C-alpha cells in the first residue's frame, strides 16, 4: 500500500488578519449585514488553503445564501421571541416554567441547526471537481442529540463517551464524497480511557482544591477570601482547564482517525500541548492588543481633554467638564466598545479559529487516497437555502 498523504495548510495568519480587519470595517456602514460576506470570505480562505495531495478544497457557497438562510431563521425566531415576551409579563412561577420550556426547545433546535449547518458546508465543498454532501435527517439528529444529552445530564456526565461516539458515527455515516459514502469505525471504547481518566482526575483535583482552598479561607461565608485559599482554588481550576484540553485533543485525534471513505482512511494527531499552546498564544495576543488599545485610548483622551492632564496629574473635575457634549461622549463610548469587541473577535479568529484548523489539518494524513480516483459526481443538492437556524442560534465556528 502507498504511503499516507499528509494534508497541507498554506494560509497565513497575516492574510486572514487583513481580510478580517477589512470585514470589520465594512460591518459598520452595512449595519452588520456584511457579516454574511465576511463568513463567506473566511470559509473561502480556510477551504482554499487546505490542500490534499496537491489539490485544495473549494468552498462554493456565497453570501446571498447565508442572508436568505438568516431570513428564514427569523421566521422561527420571531414567534419564539414573542412567546418570550408574553412569558416575561406573567407571574414569576409561570415565567420560570415558560422560560425553562423555551430553553429546552432552543437546546433541541440547536441539534437541528448544527446538522443543517454541516449539511450546508459539506454540500458546498468541492475537491477534485467532486462535491461532498450529507444525507440523514436533521430532525433525527436533533432527537438523538437531545435525548443523549438528557442521559449525560442524568448520569452526571458518565454517558458522554457513548453520546459522542453515537453522534460522530451518525454524522459520518451520512456524509458523502461524490457517490462514495463515508464510514466511521470508532466506538465509545476509543474514548473510554481518556474520558474516565480525565473525569476521575478532575473530580479528585476539584475536590482537593475546593477542600484545601476553603480550609484556607478561600470561600468564606462572608468577608474577604484569603489570598492563600484563592490561589489554591485558581491553581485547581487551571489544572482542570488543562485536563479538559488534554481530553479534547484525545477525542479529536481518536474520532477523526476513525473516519473512513471507502478504502481511504484518515489519521489525525493533535497533541494536548499544541492545544494548550494555542490558548497561551491567544491569551498573550489578547492582552497585547488590549494594552495597545488602552494606550491609544489614553492618547485620544489626552488630546480631547488635555486640560485634565495638565501638570502631570489628573483632574477629574476638569476631565468631566471636557465631556460636556453628550453626543461626542456617546460616540466615543460606542467606538471604544466596538474596538474592544473587534480586537477580541479578531484574536479569537486568528489564534483559536485558525490555530485549531491548522492543528487538525497539519496533523492529518490520508492513507489509500488512490482508491478515490474512481469516485463519481452525484446529482446536485442545492435545495438548502442557507444554514437556516444555525445563523440565528450562533452555533458552529468556521
Amino acid at each position: 500500500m502507498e504511503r499516507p498523504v499528509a494534508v497541507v495548510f498554506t494560509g497565513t495568519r497575516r492574510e486572514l488578519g487583513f481580510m478580517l480587519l477589512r470585514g470589520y470595517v465594512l460591518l459598520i456602514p452595512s449595519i452588520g449585514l456584511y457579516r454574511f460576506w465576511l463568513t463567506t470570505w473566511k470559509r473561502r480562505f480556510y477551504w482554499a488553503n487546505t490542500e490534499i495531495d496537491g489539490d485544495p478544497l473549494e468552498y462554493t457557497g456565497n453570501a446571498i445564501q447565508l442572508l436568505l438562510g438568516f431570513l428564514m431563521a427569523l421566521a422561527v425566531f420571531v414567534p419564539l421571541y414573542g412567546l418570550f415576551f408574553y412569558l416575561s409579563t406573567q407571574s414569576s412561577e409561570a415565567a420560570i416554567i415558560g422560560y425553562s420550556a423555551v430553553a429546552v426547545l432552543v437546546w433541541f433546535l440547536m441539534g437541528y441547526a448544527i446538522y443543517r449547518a454541516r449539511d450546508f458546508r459539506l454540500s458546498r465543498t468541492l475537491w477534485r471537481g467532486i462535491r461532498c454532501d450529507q444525507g440523514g435527517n436533521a430532525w433525527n439528529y436533533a432527537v438523538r442529540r437531545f435525548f443523549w444529552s438528557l442521559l449525560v445530564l442524568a448520569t452526571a456526565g458518565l454517558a458522554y463517551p457513548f453520546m459522542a461516539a453515537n453522534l460522530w458515527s451518525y454524522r459520518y455515516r451520512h456524509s458523502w464524497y461524490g457517490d462514495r459514502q463515508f464510514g466511521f469505525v470508532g466506538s465509545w471504547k476509543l474514548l473510554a480511557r481518556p474520558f474516565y481518566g480525565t473525569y476521575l482526575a478532575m473530580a479528585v483535583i476539584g475536590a482537593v482544591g475546593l477542600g484545601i482552598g476553603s480550609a484556607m479561607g478561600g470561600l468564606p461565608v462572608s468577608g474577604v477570601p484569603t489570598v492563600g485559599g484563592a490561589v489554591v482554588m485558581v491553581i485547581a481550576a487551571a489544572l482542570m482547564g488543562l485536563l479538559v484540553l488534554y481530553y479534547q485533543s484525545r477525542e479529536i485525534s481518536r474520532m477523526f482517525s476513525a473516519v473512513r471513505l471507502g478504502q481511504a482512511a484518515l489519521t489525525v494527531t493533535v497533541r494536548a500541548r499544541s492545544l494548550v499552546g494555542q490558548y497561551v498564544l491567544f491569551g498573550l495576543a489578547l492582552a497585547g492588543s488590549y494594552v495597545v488599545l488602552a494606550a491609544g485610548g489614553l492618547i485620544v483622551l489626552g488630546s480631547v481633554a488635555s486640560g485634565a492632564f495638565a501638570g502631570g496629574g489628573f483632574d477629574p473635575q476638569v476631565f468631566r467638564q471636557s465631556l460636556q457634549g453628550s453626543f461626542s461622549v456617546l460616540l466615543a463610548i460606542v467606538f471604544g466598545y466596538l474596538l474592544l469587541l473587534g480586537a477580541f473577535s479578531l484574536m479569537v479568529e486568528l489564534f483559536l479559529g485558525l490555530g485549531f484548523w491548522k492543528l487538525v489539518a497539519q496533523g492529518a494524513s490520508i492513507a489509500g487516497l488512490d482508491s478515490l480516483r474512481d469516485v463519481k459526481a452525484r446529482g446536485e443538492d442545492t435545495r438548502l437555502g442557507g444554514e437556516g437556524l444555525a445563523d440565528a442560534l450562533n452555533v458552529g465556528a468556521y
Partner: protein
Amino acid sequence: MSGSIAARFHDGLVAQVHAVALMHEAGTLVIRAGDGAELGRWATADLFAVHGRKDELRLGANGQPTGARVVVKGREDVARVLATLPVLGQKRRQQTGREIRIAVTATVALAAVIVAYLYGVPLLAGRITGLVPPEWERNLGETVARQMEASLGDDSGFEVCDSNPDSLANRAIARFGAAALEGSGSPFELDIRVVKSEIPNAFALPGGQVFFFSALLEQAETQDEFAGVLAHEVGHVAYRHGMEQLISTAGTGALIGFILGDMTGISVAAGLGATIIDARFSRDAERQADAFAAHVAERMDFNPAGLADLINRVGADDEFARALALLSTHPLTDDRKAALDPLSQQRPTGLEPPFTTAEWNAIRSMCGMPDPKTKSK
C-alpha cells in the same frame, strides 16, 4: 496566449487529476492532456473564475459539469491567462457589482426599518397597548410590584406609611389622583400608596399602582412639588406608559438581535444598543407625563414646575449626567423645568388648591415625621 500553459484539470465527473496544457484558439480554451488528447473545449464566453487562494486561478465554465475546473498556478501564468481572457475580469466585476448592489439594497432596507422603528414605535407601541386587555395589565402590575418588593423591601415587602385607607391623608391623595385621572378615559382605578423607603423615588406600575417613597415626601417643601410629582405619575398610568415601554423594549431587543445576527440576544452589544434606543423612548414618555401634570394643573391650583424643583433637590444634574444624557431614561431636569415653566404661567386663576392645609399637614406627617414645619435636612 502565445504557447501553452500548464494546468491541472478536473472534469467534474470523476475525482481524477489531469496534468494538461491550455491553448487559446479562436474564442475557445482548449484543454489537452500530456499525450495530446483533447479533454475539453470551453468557449471563452462561458468561462468564469471562482475564488481560490493567492496566485492560483480556478476556472469553471457554464454548460460544463458544475465541478469541472481548470487550475492555473503561479503568478506569471495566472497573469498571462488573465491578460489573454479579459472576459474573466469582466465577469468578476459583474459578479462583484451584483453582490454590492444586493448588500447596499439590504443595508438601505435595514436602515429604513431602523428609522421607521425609531419614529414609529411610540405610535405603534401605543396602538398595541390599546389592544392589551386592562385585566392582563393589572395582573402584570401586581407581578411587577411583588418582584419590586422582593428586590427593594425586606421580606415583608413595602411598609405602607398609613394603613388606614380612610385617614385624612389617604383620602386626600386618592381624591387628588381620581381628579387628575378624570377625563383621560383610563380603564384603571388608581391605587396610590405612600410607603417607607430611604430611596427618594416615585413610580407608576402597569395597571394603575403608584408608589410614592417616604424619602421623596420628606424632601417635598410645598404642595406644588408633591402634587406635581403625583400628577406626573398619574400621567404615566393614564398613558399606560409601563405597558408601552415593555412592548417597545421587546421590539428593540428583536431589532438589535436582527442587526447583530444574534436572535438569542445575549451579547453585550445588544444590551448597549437597546439601552440607547429604549432610553430615548423613555425620555419621550417622561416629557408626556410632565405635560399631563401641567394639564392637571389647569384644573387645580398647583405649580407643575414644582416637580422639577423636587427632582432637582433630590439629585441635580451633574456634569456626568449631562455627558451621558443620551443614555439616561429621564430628560435633564433643567430641560424639564424649562419646558414646564411656560406651561405653569398660562394657568387660569381662581382655582382650588389640591389639598387643604390640614390635609397637606396630614400627608407630610403620615410617614411619622415629627413636625411638618421643620425641615428634616
